[in-house]
């Protein structure tokens, strides 16, 4: 990573879409460790700045979620929850879900939804 990139957090790691009170985060890039950490920071900043009440992380394009990515996603969700914001993950590929469960990894603090619509429905009910 170029030093300038991470520097002032001006550049977002992932472009996000505001949807009602929710923030949609479609992950379309490789989640290397640094990226997932910067994504965490970005999500927390956006919750704070935009007064987001729910985050929907769309991981349908992500083909590997390993233990550290899982850890950071869960941690982000835990921190978001403490900030009054629920995190829903949607579109998790079946083989990724299988791999995680076989490894004994649970996405703590994260709500799992099949689709984007489901995610929105779940968040609507949580309000």
């Amino acid at each position, binding site marked *: *990573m170029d030093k300038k990139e991470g520097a002032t957090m001006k550049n977002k790691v992932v472009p996000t879409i505001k949807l009602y009170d929710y923030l949609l985060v479609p992950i379309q890039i*490789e*989640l*290397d*460790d*640094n990226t997932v950490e910067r994504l965490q920071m970005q999500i927390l900043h956006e919750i704070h700045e935009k007064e987001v009440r729910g985050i929907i992380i769309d991981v349908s394009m992500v*083909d*590997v*979620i*390993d*233990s*550290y990515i*899982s*850890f*950071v996603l869960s*941690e982000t969700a835990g921190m978001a929850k403490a900030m009054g914001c629920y995190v829903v993950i949607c579109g998790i*590929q*079946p*083989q*990724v879900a*299988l*791999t995680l469960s*076989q*490894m*004994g*990894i649970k996405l703590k603090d994260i709500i799992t939804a099949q689709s984007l619509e489901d995610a929105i429905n779940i968040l609507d009910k949580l309000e």
Partner: protein
Amino acid sequence: MNPQDYDIVLKIKDESDIAVSRQMAKNFAQKMDFSLADVTKIATAVSELARNIYRYAKEGYIYIRKKEGGSEKAPAIEILACDRGPGIENVELAISGGYTTSERSLGLGLAGIRRLMDSFHIESEVGKGTVVIVEKRRRVF
């Protein structure tokens, strides 16, 4: 062990090498015709191995090769991760799952790899380094 016997040799030194090795393993497993589920398991295992090298040993290597299964059997993928890092004091504990020396980690890497792969072999000596060898056989359709 002879590096020339392997199809892929990956040097792990920078954090970005973790993602690179993951993708290389995925491509290699795909070319070997593993099922999508197994490709994902293999790529995930390599991701864990690479991160452990980067995190605990600072640098090391990952070797990947195809092992022919003989006349009747399907081939297998072998992954060897080695480093000259600090080694693991209590290997039993490290592979039991839930044990970690990192502050922000689940401690489910080694235990997870073991569950994802068909065979799992680890050798580690404090002050010398760590070698992990895993295999996954392609299913016969």
